[in-house]
């Protein structure tokens, strides 16, 4: 692209005159409308249900009122439990995510590439798996660690993982990797000269991290905080497995009760769900207030190469920090589940007669599981691939465009994250059942559902990187006469690459392990795997659950490896 000799005019004045402007508006408006339709269509049905005070089994509702909301104060203790656990888990997850992202992107820690790969593993596994593994490790009587502790002569258990602290710990361990992926995507796009300048004038590494790195990645961290907090609010598995033994309940376990019982109390569950919109919107409002009017640009016209700091011998300490996290979140849980999955009834000291491969035989013999794995992978691939285009454009519209209503759009795309999936799934089911196209009961409805519920994940991940890019880079292209499509393809997209890859991986994995929407929306020929795994925990055995989940983890891990290898090769070719 070459600049011509035309006289310079103010950029804002040129934008409307550019040939790309109508196309930009058209694409922007189309994407915004599509996303809004995906989200608001089921949300309409959710609100309809929340105000339904007639027979809950009759649709559309026979009568409307506020009765369901009037019952919410009865659940105030559960709401407080939920907030307490969600805040504790979010803080822990962000600390894990930020510290490890900083170590792996900004320092010369040994085995960085391998550690980075492993950091995503906790996110591969279905959340139930982490909770199950830690229940096997840390239950007071039968937990493997406590059994070993007693075998060493102790009388009491070393620790008890059931209860609120255990729930927050397990949630943080496994969601910490999401925070890591989101924050490290931001850190990778950061010009290291800012940190180097800080150190040149005498600031210590810690001071540089706190005073320079942290503020610069604040949008990414805040974006991750919002997403992770919402994930924690909607988290179900850890509370189910670890909370019940200690009589500790959160909002998702209460909602599960409401939708599972006969007759299901969907209107109350919907009222509970839509009430969480208020919490989420307060979070986004806060995010916008904090980030408004400040610049987080770290990628400008000035060229830079991502460089890392030489931290000397401290690198081994930092390596140990990463290793401890990975042991807690990957190796120990995986080893525990592997050990449990080859036993009839898991114990730390199994007799030879207790060892068996029958759980793997059962898992692999289930036709439904075999086809479900294929469906899960196909959906994951499609959702991630379409999702990054959709969410990339949405992030761009929200952060960069001048489209009217772009601020509202940011709130709209967060709707699916604000409501526990178990409830949002009912809204989607009601909505798509009456939609004139025959998508219900097919893979299409799952694709639409996944694209809808993972909009927040993609938008938050990509936005975090997008706000680091200096607008002048695009404007330069614009002044030089490049069309909007050309600028997106040659300037914005390449600079967004870390964010796009992170978003693809996150959406892919999130799709494969999706549970809440899948349970209601899958058809007999469009089954996916995670509901079958969770179901095995409900009615079969922890050992079969472990076997199925490990099979899923290995397959997903292999697919991710292929994707990363291909994308790296493509990047090298491109470079």
């Amino acid at each position: 692209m070459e600049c011509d000799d035309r006289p310079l005019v103010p950029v804002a004045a040129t934008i409307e005159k550019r040939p790309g402007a109508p196309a930009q508006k058209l694409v922007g408006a189309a994407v915004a409308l599509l996303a809004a339709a995906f989200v608001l269509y089921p949300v309409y049905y959710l609100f309809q249900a929340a105000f339904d005070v007639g027979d809950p089994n009759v649709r559309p509702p026979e009568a409307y009122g506020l009765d369901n909301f009037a019952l919410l104060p009865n659940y105030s203790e559960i709401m407080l439990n939920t907030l307490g656990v969600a805040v504790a888990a979010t803080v822990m997850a962000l600390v894990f995510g930020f510290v490890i992202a900083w170590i792996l992107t900004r320092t010369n820690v040994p085995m960085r590439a391998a550690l980075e790969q492993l950091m995503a593993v906790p996110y591969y596994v279905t959340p139930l798996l982490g909770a199950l593994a830690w229940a096997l490790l840390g239950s007071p009587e039968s937990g493997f660690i406590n059994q070993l502790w007693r075998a060493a002569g102790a009388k009491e258990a070393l620790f008890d993982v059931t209860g609120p602290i255990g729930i927050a710990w397990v949630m943080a361990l496994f969601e910490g990797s999401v925070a890591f992926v989101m924050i490290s995507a931001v850190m990778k796009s950061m010009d290291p000269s800012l940190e180097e300048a800080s150190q040149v004038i005498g600031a210590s590494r810690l001071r540089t991290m706190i005073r320079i790195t942290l503020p610069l990645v604040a949008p990414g961290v805040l974006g991750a905080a919002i997403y992770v907090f919402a994930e924690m609010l909607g988290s179900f598995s850890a509370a189910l497995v670890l909370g019940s033994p200690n009589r500790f309940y959160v909002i998702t376990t209460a909602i599960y009760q409401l939708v599972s019982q006969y007759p299901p109390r969907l209107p109350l569950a919907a009222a509970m769900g839509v009430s969480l919109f208020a919490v989420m919107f307060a979070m986004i409002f806060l995010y916008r207030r904090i980030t408004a009017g400040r610049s987080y640009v770290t990628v400008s016209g000035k060229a830079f190469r991502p460089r890392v700091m030489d931290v000397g011998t401290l690198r081994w300490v930092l390596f140990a920090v990463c290793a401890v996290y990975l042991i807690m979140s990957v190796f120990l849980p995986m080893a525990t589940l592997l050990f449990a999955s080859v036993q009839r009834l898991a114990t730390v000291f199994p007799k030879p007669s207790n060892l068996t491969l029958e759980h793997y035989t059962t898992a692999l013999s289930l036709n439904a599981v075999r086809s479900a794995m294929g469906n899960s992978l196909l959906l994951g691939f499609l959702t991630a691939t379409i999702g990054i285009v959709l969410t990339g454009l949405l992030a761009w519209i929200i952060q960069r465009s001048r489209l009217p209503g772009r601020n509202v759009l940011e709130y709209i795309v967060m709707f699916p994250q604000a409501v526990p999936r178990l409830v949002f799934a009912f809204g989607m089911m009601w909505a798509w059942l009456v939609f004139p196209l025959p998508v219900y009961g097919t893979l299409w409805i799952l694709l639409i559902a996944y694209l809808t519920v993972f909009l927040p994940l993609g938008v938050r991940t990509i936005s975090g990187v997008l706000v680091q890019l200096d607008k002048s880079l695009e404007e330069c292209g614009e002044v030089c006469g490049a069309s909007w499509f050309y600028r997106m393809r040659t300037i914005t997209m390449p600079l967004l690459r870390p964010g796009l890859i992170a978003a693809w991986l996150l959406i892919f994995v999130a799709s494969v392990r999706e549970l809440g929407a899948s349970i209601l929306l899958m058809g007999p020929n469009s089954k996916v795997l995670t509901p079958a795994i969770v179901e095995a925990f409900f009615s079969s055995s922890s050992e079969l659950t472990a076997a199925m989940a490990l099979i899923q983890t290995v397959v997903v891990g292999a697919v991710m490896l292929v994707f990363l290898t291909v994308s790296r090769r493509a990047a090298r070719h491109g470079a």
Partner: protein
Amino acid sequence: MAKRGFRGLSRRTLLKGALAAAAVPATARIAVSAETRKVTEVNGVKTAADMAKAEAEGAMLFYTHDSDPAGAAIVEAFSKDFPKIKASYLRAQNGALYAKLLAERGAGRYAVDVVQFSEVSTAIDFQKKGGYEHYESPERAAYPANALGTPAGYFFFSGIDFVGIVYNSEKVTGADVPKNWKDLLKPRFRNVISCKQSTSGMQFVQWFELKKLYGDDYWKEFGKLRPHGFDSRAQLFERLAKGEEQATILGEWAGYQLVKDRGAPVVFVAPEDGLPATPLATGVVSKPAHPEAARLFLDWLMSPKGQTLYQTNKFLYYPSLRKDAAPMPGGMKLADYKLIFPKSMDEYEKAHPAYVKEWNAMIGL
């Protein structure tokens, strides 16, 4: 398994009156009676379905509350007997399954052919809504009349879920071993006893029946033990097997059998005052997508083949109500147990809100 030193009532007597109040006006009388259709026997299954049409339909869809391995085992066994009909299933928890089914029918979508609910009250409600097709299977003669719904021909009881006491034999010994329901109220079970959460239909039946037997105070006393409530049957039994809890008041026979098979030190006790029980209800839905295949599937499910699978598959383990049913794994027959069912379905259904409130408060929810 603990010795059960008594003989229960006969199956017919057990069910007598159990659902007497459940008479439902038939709103969807698309009567398909065996009397008006030719009955054939195919692969050991007596059926009034038109086999040629069933095979031409080539498929059928079964909705069930049961687990994935259970659903898979059922449709695979059926398809093995009738290879020209591709049977498939979809499962969800009873409440969610019913909400999904009603939403689909409300939107005019009729993909499902046969549905099984874990609670008879769900089936009765569905019957009231005209959800079932009336079909009198030729296999009905092998069942007691009250296992065929009221009026007969809308759903049948495809299996029985019943509960006793189950305890960990390494943790509970000697005089502490419970023999009847009231033995579980001893303070030694405080913090080490489990139950299900209020979502469980079986837990509702037990609450209702023990309240009838012992009065309101029973559950108040039980609540003082701070019981641990679970949604997952597997979690409940595995924790019991490993000693996290030492006894459960909701010792579902099927769950007990599954964990016992895996070598767990657990013992089933059949209290002499009776074992709360609830049937699974299965029927052909109205406007099925594959009507003949649906009828054939129901006949197969009611036949000795289907019922043997229900009794012996480890993901099912539901005792059969067939008069000629073989003993259950372990050698006992259903008639060996004194089962107690809700006598008034009306009273039972009306008690549900009180149950949910009391139960949730008791388990700290």
